[in-house]
């Protein structure tokens, strides 16, 4: 039971809003100590685990070129492009991105997306520009909400598209686990059962995106017709 202390530290730490990086470090070291190892081997295995996980952060290599392009007006250009498309709304734009992300992920092209490479420089500015075009100047809360939606679409698209591709990590993991348990399944028989969920994800989240358009419109109408504070005083 004692090694579960790491889970408790993580839950309590996040709930009490301590810095997540600190919480996770403390949880990792405590888990090792609670499992009965002494401090030097625990720090060693923690160091090894950290070094072995370096590949997770390779995406930051995109930042020099993304920053360079931002400096030269990439976001401004992305806004102009969307401003010129009459039919574009925030919800519809994100719906198209959701579909593209799911389809490309299902073909194994999961690297066609991502928060650093795609969402920050292109998708989020475009989604904001679509709202500005239709509704005028946005307040900060609305701007943040639209950006959060842009990030969410990238996640949902890739999660519920990639498992249709037979050579993706999660399918390979399922196969090797079942193999260890003496059960042999073909990757294609796993991938085929990812399809119904992919369709449900598109329908559920797509519907929410179309509702997002409506909610943004209502908010801007409410803001436009609300009496200004000086009028309210009278």
């Amino acid at each position: 039971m004692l090694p579960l202390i790491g889970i408790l530290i993580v839950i309590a730490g996040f709930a009490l809003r301590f810095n997540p990086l600190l919480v996770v470090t403390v949880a990792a070291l405590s888990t090792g100590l609670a499992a009965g190892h002494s401090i030097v081997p625990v720090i060693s295995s923690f160091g090894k685990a950290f070094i072995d996980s370096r590949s997770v952060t390779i995406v930051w290599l995109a930042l020099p070129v993304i920053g360079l392009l931002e400096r030269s007006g990439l976001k401004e250009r992305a806004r102009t492009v969307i401003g010129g498309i009459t039919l574009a709304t925030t919800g519809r734009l994100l719906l198209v991105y959701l579909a593209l992300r799911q389809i490309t992920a299902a073909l194994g092209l999961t690297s066609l997306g991502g928060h650093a490479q795609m969402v920050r420089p292109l998708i989020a500015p475009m989604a904001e520009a679509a709202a500005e075009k239709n509704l005028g100047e946005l307040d900060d809360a609305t701007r943040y909400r639209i950006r959060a939606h842009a990030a969410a679409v990238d996640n949902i698209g890739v999660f519920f598209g990639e498992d249709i591709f037979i050579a993706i990590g999660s399918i390979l993991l399922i196969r090797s686990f079942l193999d260890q348990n003496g059960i042999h399944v073909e990757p294609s028989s796993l991938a085929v059962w990812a399809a119904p969920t992919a369709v449900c994800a598109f329908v559920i989240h797509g519907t929410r995106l179309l509702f997002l358009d409506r909610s943004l419109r209502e908010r801007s109408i409410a803001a436009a017709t609300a009496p200004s504070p000086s009028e309210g005083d009278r």
Partner: protein
Amino acid sequence: MIKLESVYILMGIMMAGVAIVNVRDRRAPKRLNNAAFWGLYAVTFLAGSRLPDFANGLLVIAMVSVMAIGRLGGAPPESTTRLEREASARRWANRLFIPALAIPAVTIAGTFGFKYLTLNGAPVVDPKQTTLVALGVATVVALLVGMAMLRPPLSAPIVEARRLMDAVGWAAVLPQMLAALGAMFALAGVGPIVASILQRVIPLDSPFTVVVAYAVGMAGFTAIMGNAFPAFPVMTAAIGLPLIVAKFGGDVSAMAAIGMLSGFCGTLVTPMAANFNIVPVALLELPNEGAVIRVQFPTAVLLLAANILIMYWAAFRK
């Protein structure tokens, strides 16, 4: 042969550059803290493969101490004004998208094409790491295209990288730290303990309740671990195989595939999945850490319910 190690060296050089730009920026109040944080991180990339595990562990603890005790400074102001950027956007127009789209294009070309690149019969790129090496190569190609096209000062890429890395801050390291936590959990045998608790508390009386327990368990344990991969073997060994498949005769492929997707619903709602839920908050400069999770929450709940129904139908269809 180009291996992942070369990409790590590239990362190390970039992080060292970010640290140096910080040291030299006298206007930034926390410049030395940021420089120490990114400098130590650079060492883990440049020398991590050769240092003893214990030294690496101390480096990581030192990074976290700098952040926790000294605190990190935020992003510096942008290096160009809005008017300059708008003028540049008009001048370059859609050509600005070329370097940005070169990153995914070259990554994909490399992923599929590297295996045909051979030198004296030996592969040029490590065949086990093609996607990650391709991503590294793609960022270099995109940067070269961008530099050749825009002709900015030579220091621009690293100055901009520093602006963005400081904007993301400690969140940049969190995904890696969580992966390390997962490894520590595995070492301490956390999974089997959770599985034995679950087997004692869940009701086992009908196929439907067992499917609910498995799908919700996958989502819940994934939320705790931040990743469906470590949750899958634990939950499937505890509930999936013994109950859904062995006891009630459910279809193993449907159970496993939809079980993994139920786990992904948990990924959508947890700060532990930092690279999906916390990193974009930092990258998009959102004030509320839970902003992305809040948007994803309704979809995650509805989709988990859908997964339960699909699994029940698919595993027990006759």
